[in-house]
């Protein structure tokens, strides 16, 4: 055995583990944007939260290849868990965040078996059905959730020090940034681990994955629960930074929008959701400022073109563009 080959294998397996310069630049730039545009803190916050939500979808769609049209279910569960906790005077954001993630993970774990059988189409419909059922459940239990009127509440300070309301918009964005970054780093690690590799195997060829001794069903259940927890955390953040939850969190369009974001940015490389959320929300903001009634048309057009041109090609383009921009930023900064 040659030491050279050994080294190359180690390097190959760990090649995505080391943070690359372009990645570091990406996160620094994101942080810089929060400070550079204090007046857009609310929009940036929305992007960060949506980015986390899209990341949650990437965990199952991008890593494990499981399609879902019901990711809103977990967004809603997480948001309502955090909101209900806050309305019981447990207003500490960290507690709410944990509760949101946990509640969503439990629901995810409980519903994951529904995904094990059937084809993509069945999965799309089952996940959609579950989100609709949960939405109706929230609607029917108005005593707890506020029903169709929504539930508003006041939020405590992050870590007991930083208010995140209107006067603390930047705090809110920084809070979301911190949560996104930590969860992203975890997801990144997970993707790079043997577990992540096993998910890639299941996505690429479930039959062979099983033939290598991988308990494919359990892995899918596990990643679905993790994905649900991420979506729940996004929901909790959304609830906490807006201090209101309403039934539209469970709506079909939430699940559809997050899928668009992820697809725009490209699934499977974890940055896609965040970039896609940025592009989608900024585009929506700009177009809808110009034509509040007709902005959907342009998003729709973008989507049709995206599918027609081929997602893979566009995804590759976005990936390369993003890393080049980041490198350029690094060079300019140096």
């Amino acid at each position, binding site marked *: 055995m040659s030491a050279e080959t050994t080294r190359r294998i180690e390097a190959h397996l760990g090649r995505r583990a080391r943070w690359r310069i372009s990645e570091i630049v990406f996160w620094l730039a994101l942080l810089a944007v929060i400070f550079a545009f204090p*007046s*857009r803190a609310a929009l940036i916050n929305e992007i960060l939260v949506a980015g986390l939500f899209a990341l949650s979808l990437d965990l199952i769609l991008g890593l494990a290849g499981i399609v879902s049209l019901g990711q809103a279910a977990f967004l809603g569960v997480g948001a309502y868990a955090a909101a209900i906790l806050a309305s019981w005077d447990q207003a500490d954001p960290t507690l709410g965040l944990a509760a949101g993630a946990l509640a969503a993970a439990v629901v995810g774990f409980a519903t994951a078996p529904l995904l094990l059988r059937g084809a993509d189409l069945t999965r799309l419909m089952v996940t959609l059905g579950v989100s609709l059922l949960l939405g109706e459940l929230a609607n029917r239990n108005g005593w707890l959730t506020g029903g169709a009127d929504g539930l508003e509440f006041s939020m405590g300070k992050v870590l007991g020090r930083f208010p995140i309301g209107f006067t603390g918009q930047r705090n809110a964005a920084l809070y979301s940034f911190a949560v996104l970054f930590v969860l992203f780093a975890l997801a990144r690690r997970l993707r790079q681990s043997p577990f992540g590799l096993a998910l890639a195997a299941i996505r690429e060829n479930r039959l062979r994955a099983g033939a290598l001794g991988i308990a494919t069903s359990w892995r899918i259940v596990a990643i679905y629960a993790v994905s649900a927890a991420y979506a729940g955390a996004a929901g909790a953040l959304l609830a906490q930074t*807006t201090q209101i939850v309403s039934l*539209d969190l469970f709506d079909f369009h939430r699940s559809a929008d997050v899928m668009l974001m992820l697809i725009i940015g490209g699934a499977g490389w974890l940055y896609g959701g965040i970039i896609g959320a940025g592009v989608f929300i900024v585009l929506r903001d700009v177009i809808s400022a110009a034509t509040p009634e007709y902005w959907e048309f342009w998003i729709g057009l973008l989507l049709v073109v995206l599918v027609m041109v081929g997602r893979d090609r566009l995804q590759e383009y976005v990936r390369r563009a993003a890393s080049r921009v980041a490198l350029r930023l690094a060079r300019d900064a140096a």
Partner: protein
Amino acid sequence: MTAKRWTLAAALCAMLAASPALADENTVTVGLILPMTGPSASTGKQEKAGAELYIHEHGDTVAGKKIALVVKDDTGAADVTKRLAEELVGNEHASVLMGFGLTPLALAAAPVATEAKVPEIVTAAATAMITEKSPYIVRTSFTLPQAAAPMADWALENGIRKVVTVVTDYGPGVDAEKWFGGTFEKGGGMIMQKIRVPLKNPDFAPFLQRMADDKPDAVFVFVPSGFGAIFMKQFVERGLDKSGVRLIGTGDVTDDDLLAAIGDAALGAVTTHHYSADHDSPENKAFVAAFEKANNGMRPNFMAVAAYDGMGLVYKALEKTKGDASGDALLAAMKGLSWTSPRGPVSIDPETRDIVQNIYVRKVEMKDGALFNVEFATIPDVKDPYKASKR
């Protein structure tokens, strides 16, 4: 290529940074947040047209200040409303927030109004408690108790004793059920059954059948504007009108905007509300004519007039403060203001910040080849009974 991508990123940042027309000293920005897309889009369209009409008629300058109206689409999602409110205030330096199509949307903006000390003028959402959620909320639309309670009085006076109520199952619906029912029972009437219909409901048949089985004197109905057409049509289709059951309700079900669409099925329905396009006053005739002219023949409804008055409230408050657009000054000026709206005389209750207005009893009739809510009785100066009851 690299340069091109670099430009792309720069463009994204620029879009992010863009703050339209940096507000100067002499501009007062009014942020109008409405659902412009999705199922409540018709509300947004009416409101936007109403607010724009006011500016068009009264010029864009008042007390030396230029008025800038910024319209934002919140898609009916509360978190977007909240974000837009924050941005309008924080980024575009809006002095007034206005609009809010549904109760949760109005509530979402309330903390922003409170913290930023910016008046929030609610021109649509009609759940009574909304104004209690922030001392900066002022309302120019109406509250459901305000419209529903007088209906009970009228019903009692007109020999109706047994009623089934049908309301949509959300804040305003529950308000309507409670205030019609409460007032009606206090006056000696009997509520035979209270039916709540889910918000997303394409078919009223089973509910209508339930009420038909009870054989009431009348059915009291509240559905959000837009659902009125289905309800009325199915009511007639089921033959309930011919079996002698009267249809009463708040004006939402016979929305002016939809009457033509509902057609003859609406004939004879008696409702109480604060505005009818048929209201007989010179102010209203001018308003309706100007609105239809500006909007391709679209008939204004109570949403349009509320936004029109909301805009008017801003103008009048600014005149009173002599151009001082700070939140507290505007709010103080708004309290107690009174004027003549297309709907009749109105004023802002200084204590509750809700609008005080006449409630009219109307009946749908054919007039000059078109259907109208024709007013035939007036209950003057009605305050929101919900807040009055709490005192």
